[in-house]
């Protein structure tokens, strides 16, 4: 091997610099580890900034009766009991401390009249539980963690994409990637790695996700031998923008409904009375998304195929104060003044409940030295995530992953990088430049989004899912013949080509899992199997790479201990 790669060595390498990656990095540093943090974008631009509504934590600042037990029960009920109970318990117990810690690092939340952190109502949460900053909570969270990281001196590798995990025997040894700006290759040597790369929203056309959400971490982990779990559960947020076309899918925060927003169809009917008369607009996301979809399909949608969401009955100043970015977003992008009239909204692909299977306490995957947290990991949310539980997930399990990865690195010897693995990774990246015909990657991305949107959407059936699998079979060879124009210098077409490989792989995992689960539960709705099946409540679908073949197994859902089972009974 003659090529010398730029090489960096750390104890712990963290891939992804959203909330989970940053929180993991801070904790690994606190444990004394040398930490590297790699991210595809500039630092502080990760999708966490788009989280608007708040962080769910049972602080009981507003509703005194709240405690971790109720939060635990809400999370399990929202996930339709497919959740890993221990993750749901740890999450509910630790979230308040993680929020206080943010405040001690300089975050400024909205306040109650007595000067405490204010909490708002959200779908599926029994009490007012979401600590928030207007409708830009995610920005506050990421900026606070980022500033803390800068203060502690984390090594950050911005605009750098990892394309392969390297192994030393069974264990993780490092990673290979490229600098997006210059196109140079880079190798990272590490004793442990934390994956915090988010989800796969970009495989759907109507999505709230940015270009970064291409399932990178799930694909990297899968290729390194890790198990993926619950991949059939893709959350469609009920309220994305539907008009104009350029902003279709853009998130409209659940905080609009949390603050009293009302959903109506074109006939003026408050249709949630039909679907969930008790919780109405603040039902769980799976229910509200299906309700809006059904209204539109049955001909009661708005002009642009959505529902009306109205907050204009609240005083204009209150709306501007509590939902400032929604006010500007609609005013500037859709010519709608939300203090005067309704918004048009419809479901948008938003979040992946499934991901890398991890141990609850340690966030360890099934590959030694590989950890995962945040959206890239599975387990906490079961079949449907409650709004606000994502930011708290990032903090609670980001911290746990960072801690475990540092401990793992501490007790491990140095790893060796295998140059044949590096060379293989490099060859893969250079191959598209060797072709001077073929189609642009954007056309393939477009067709993937159509396939997933039309055939693996909110409502599914066997025929559609099988058709999706055969369309993915057609897309794969097309991707292998793609053409790249220009050089390696900041070349988005080249970047997309690599990202597409991850999206195709994980889209297949989603589709295969969806085909296997012959019931409807949470975010997975089968028209041909419309009911819950108690047998499926006991099983998680697992996807694993067996000798190059994607293989699906069932795995029993961990048994809930008696005292928590009793709690769930009591809080019914």
């Amino acid at each position, binding site marked *: 091997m003659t090529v010398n790669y730029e090489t960096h060595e750390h104890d712990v390498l963290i891939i992804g610099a959203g909330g989970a990656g940053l929180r993991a990095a801070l904790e690994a540093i606190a444990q004394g580890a040398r930490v590297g943090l790699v991210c595809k974008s500039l630092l502080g631009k990760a*999708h966490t900034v788009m989280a608007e509504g708040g962080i769910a934590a049972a602080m009981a600042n507003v509703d005194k009766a709240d405690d971790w037990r109720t939060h635990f029960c809400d999370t399990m009920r929202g996930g339709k009991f497919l959740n890993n109970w221990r993750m749901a318990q740890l999450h509910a117990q630790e979230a308040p401390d993680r929020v206080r810690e943010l405040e001690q*690092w300089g975050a*400024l939340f909205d306040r109650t009249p007595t000067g405490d952190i204010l909490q708002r109502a959200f779908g599926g949460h029994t009490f007012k539980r979401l600590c928030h900053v207007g409708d830009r909570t995610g920005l506050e969270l990421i900026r606070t963690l980022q500033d803390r990281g800068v203060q502690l001196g984390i090594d950050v590798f911005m605009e750098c994409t990892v394309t392969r995990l390297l192994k030393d025997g069974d264990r993780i040894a490092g990673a290979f990637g490229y600098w997006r700006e210059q196109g140079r290759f880079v190798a990272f040597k590490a004793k442990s790695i934390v994956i915090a790369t988010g989800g796969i929203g970009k495989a759907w056309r109507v999505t709230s996700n940015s270009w970064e959400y291409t399932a990178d971490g799930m694909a990297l982990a899968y290729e390194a031998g890790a198990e993926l779990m619950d991949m059939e559960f893709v959350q469609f947020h009920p309220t994305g923008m539907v008009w104009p076309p350029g*902003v279709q899918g853009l998130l409209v925060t659940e905080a609009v409904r949390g603050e009293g927003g009302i959903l109506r169809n074109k006939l003026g009917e408050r249709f949630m009375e039909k679907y969930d008369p008790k919780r109405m607009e603040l039902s769980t996301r799976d229910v509200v998304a299906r309700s809006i979809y059904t209204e539109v399909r049955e001909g009661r949608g708005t002009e642009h195929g959505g529902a009306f969401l109205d907050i204009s009955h609240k005083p204009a100043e209150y709306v501007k104060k509590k939902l400032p970015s929604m006010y500007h977003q609609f005013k500037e*992008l859709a010519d709608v003044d939300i203090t005067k009239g309704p918004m048009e909204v419809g479901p948008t692909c938003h979040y992946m409940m499934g991901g890398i299977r991890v141990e609850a306490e340690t966030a360890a995957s099934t590959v030694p030295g590989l950890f995962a947290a945040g959206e890239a990991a599975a387990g906490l949310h079961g079949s449907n995530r409650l709004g606000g539980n994502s930011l708290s997930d990032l903090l609670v399990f980001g911290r746990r992953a960072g801690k475990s990865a540092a401990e793992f690195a501490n007790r491990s010897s140095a790893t060796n990088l295998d140059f044949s693995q590096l060379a293989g990774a490099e060859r893969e990246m250079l191959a598209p430049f060797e072709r001077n015909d073929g189609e642009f990657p954007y056309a393939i991305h477009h067709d993937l989004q159509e396939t997933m949107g039309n055939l693996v959407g909110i409502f599914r059936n066997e025929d559609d899912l099988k058709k999706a699998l055969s369309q993915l079979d057609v897309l794969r060879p097309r991707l292998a013949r793609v053409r790249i124009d220009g050089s390696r210098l*900041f070349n988005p077409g080249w970047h997309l080509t690599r990202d597409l490989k991850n999206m195709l792989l994980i889209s297949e995992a989603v589709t295969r899992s969806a085909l296997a689960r012959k019931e409807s539960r949470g975010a997975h709705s089968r028209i041909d199997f419309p009911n819950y099946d108690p047998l499926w409540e006991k099983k998680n679908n697992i996807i694993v790479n067996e000798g190059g073949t994607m293989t699906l197994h069932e795995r029993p859902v961990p048994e809930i201990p008696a005292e928590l089972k009793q709690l769930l009974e009591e809080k019914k």
Partner: protein
Amino acid sequence: MADAILRVFRGDNSGGKAVDYRVPLAPGMVILDALHSIQAHQSPDLAVRWNCKAAKCGSCSAEVNGRPRLTCKTRMDSLPLDEPITVSPLKAFPVIKDLVTDVSWNYKVNKKIPAFQPRPNVEWKMDQRDVDRVQEFRKCIECFLCQNVCHVLRDHAKHESFGGPRFFVRAAGLEMHPLDGVSRTALLKNELGIGYCNITKCCTEVCPEEIHITDNAIIPLKERVVDEFYDPVTMLFRKLRGT
């Protein structure tokens, strides 16, 4: 609908030229949509940064018809479409390729600013009115449009001795935090060169978050610097104490 012509800078740090692209218009289209259309159908290697497409991340900054803008928020129908729309990279930072510039200098400046440190034994209670004042600064999405338009950086290239509006906003957010116990006035005076700012308010005008950068951040910070370093009574007191 008709077409629009985008005149986009194509090149790298060794130079380049503006190239015209014809793009079909759609209702509500923004400049970033047009750039994506060029990538998808005409030039897949057109370099542009973007993330949220909702004016929340500050990645897609560029100069549209000579004016610093977020391209995700600049509606095509707000511009005259009978002539080409020029789209160029931010002028105050070196070009990497096309519309992507090297903004790493900002991250270096940021490292100079001491983080939030609570006063000893504070009680974690705050009044919403005190929080409001600081939350304005914390709205900043780091699009660096204010940095790009500031004369001290854009025309005089004082990057070595000046922090720029973005970091006065960050410093203000820390200095005015109700529970913060660190003073950053010496840093503002010496290393961030706040004295160079002659309050022309160009930064405030381009801020997509409508932060009153000059009035609410820079002027109060300048006053703190003056109070600490140039107040005659304090100066005399300092002289007498020999500090």
